[in-house]
């Protein structure tokens, strides 16, 4: 019998969860679609997301529904919805992945420092976490966006309007959650006897943090990241819906905002970006749940 690492065991259990597995396949396809959006556009034969196809509007200038030339229809100024949904996937995924990645990086670092070193460092970090968690995220986003809406941006140009500011808000709202979870885990891990064993062998703090504690955090980090990604996709969509997010690039939230007044006359205008958002978030959530179940086999209902 070959040795199985805990991550291999995790994967074996995850594989049994067919729903989560299908969701994972969906996400993999979505990522491919996002990466190859321009290729797909040329293969399907639809115009660029910014291009206005006037021939797709009727005599009164109203958009037409799905046709062979425009499978998802066009919007009120003749832009192809499919092309825009595909590009929206690119934006949603990059913003959510980068934002969650940075949040995990910052949160894990802060949480480990607080949990491992305790004392006044822990007190300071824990209070900062409390303060950040008390911020109303959407209001903060609206405020920051309008404050930084000029070309120069905020903080000496570090915060540019558009994508950067959305990622900044995501990091600001997600990393305290990550830090709090990691801090708790580290507080319990550092008391384990294997940490004391490492110390009695002569290991220093850095070795203990990276070789003893961090490997035990990999699984929870993966699970929480997979649950924060859909939340951040929704956050990006909400910010774009409110007009805070990205303007120069199609985004699902912004498309939904544009569609609000026209649902009666052009259902496809809201349906397709809404569906894309719904399915993406659902898939990520299912994968996250599946991962959590695979990580805690005791909490599993079916064997």
């Amino acid at each position: 019998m070959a040795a199985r690492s805990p991550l291999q065991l995790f994967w074996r259990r995850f594989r049994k969860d067919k729903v989560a597995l299908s969701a994972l396949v969906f996400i993999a396809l979505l990522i491919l679609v996002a990466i190859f959006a321009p290729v797909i556009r040329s293969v399907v034969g639809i115009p660029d997301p910014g291009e206005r196809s006037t021939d797709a509007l009727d005599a009164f200038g109203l958009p037409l529904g799905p046709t062979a030339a425009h499978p998802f229809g066009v919007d009120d100024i003749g832009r192809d919805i499919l092309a825009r949904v595909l590009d929206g996937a690119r934006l949603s995924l990059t913003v959510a992945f980068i934002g969650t990645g940075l949040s995990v990086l910052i949160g894990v670092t802060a949480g480990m420092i607080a949990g491992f070193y305790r004392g006044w460092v822990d007190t300071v970090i824990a209070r900062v976490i409390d303060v950040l968690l008390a911020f109303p995220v959407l209001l903060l986003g609206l405020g920051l966006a309008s404050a930084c809406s000029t070309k120069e941006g905020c903080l000496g140009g570090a915060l540019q309007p558009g994508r950067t500011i959305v990622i900044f808000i995501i990091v600001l709202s997600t990393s305290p959650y990550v830090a709090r979870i990691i801090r708790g885990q580290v507080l319990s891990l550092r008391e384990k006897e294997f940490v004391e064993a490492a110390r009695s062998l002569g290991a220093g703090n850095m070795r203990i943090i990276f070789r003893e504690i961090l490997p035990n955090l990999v699984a929870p980090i993966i699970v929480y990241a997979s649950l924060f990604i859909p939340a951040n996709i929704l956050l990006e969509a909400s910010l774009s819906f409110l007009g805070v997010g990205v303007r120069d690039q199609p985004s699902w939230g912004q498309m939904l905002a544009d569609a609000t007044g026209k649902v009666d006359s052009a259902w496809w205008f809201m349906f397709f970006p809404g569906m894309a958002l719904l399915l993406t978030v659902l898939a990520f959530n299912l994968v996250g749940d599946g991962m959590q179940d695979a990580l805690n086999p005791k909490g599993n209902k079916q064997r």
Partner: protein
Amino acid sequence: MSVSASEATGANPVAREKIMEVEGLFKHFPIHAGFFRRQVGAVKAVDGVSFDVLRGETLGLVGESGCGKSTTARLLLRLMEPTDGSIKFEGREIAGVKGNELKALRREMQMIFQDPYSSLNPRKTVGSIISDPFAIHGMHKDAGERKKAVQELMDIVGLNPEHYNRYPHEFSGGQRQRIGVARALALRPKVIVADEPVSALDVSIQAQVLNLLRDLQRELGLTLIFIAHDLSVVRHMCDRVAVMYLGRIVELATSDQLYSHPRMPYTGALMSAVPVADPRLAAAKKRQVLVGDVPSPTNPPPGCRFHTRCWKAQEVCRNEDPPLVAKDGGNLAACHFPLSDAEVLERVPSARNVNG
């Protein structure tokens, strides 16, 4: 049987060399309370402990939970900073060493932990757990050589060397404890502290691990400090035994002396609680039952610490702290009114086994 103190401390007429000398060791854990976290008191976990460890012997540390035996072990290994006191290893003061000196000291003394489940990192393979000491101290840098050294260790402790790449969860409790033993042996230490190494294991497995420790000690000439609360295990393993109560050593004697004639009433009560296999002896035994609980280590009683529960306590016990000195039979005991042989015979079954 001679009554000299040297026999009690020396175990052997040929005086063995002292490998460790502990003098006036204290460990007080501060208690903070209130908004400003002011210190309002201290848990006196180890409160003035002195003893020597002889090269090649097995020294037992026994006592009930919370008496400070594990804390003492961690102080000896410098896993905790002593509040006060001196610890000498091979004549060298080690209570204050830091940095590289401390790291070098780690090679001399190692620990076997109580819980084989929490003492092995679940995310690492056995090979990586046992080779950690090599990685930390830069030994066997060549990968093949390191693997060979690890597999040798696995062989020594009775594990299949082919299980090198397995994870701890694939092993039973006894096997896991063997992994812990292999890790402790990797640096070829002179002293090994075993903190209740078998109390988390099934009784059927305990003997295997104990015999492994004893065999290894003989083969490698190790000095073993053995912490336990199981008195029959201690008798099986130890040359000398120190009995702790509330952060102090109350009796120190060779295993034979302690089991045949305990002098401190507390030790007598512990011995009297050991179950006896022979029903006739068990029926004849008069058990010495202690009443009450161990007093709080934040506020230990004045005088003899045991006087609150001792059936022989007198006025002097409440006022005067008895020194740890040689008593009749050679035991070192901290007691004003040590047990007489007649009292021992009445209460302690192990005394009868020895005396006929």
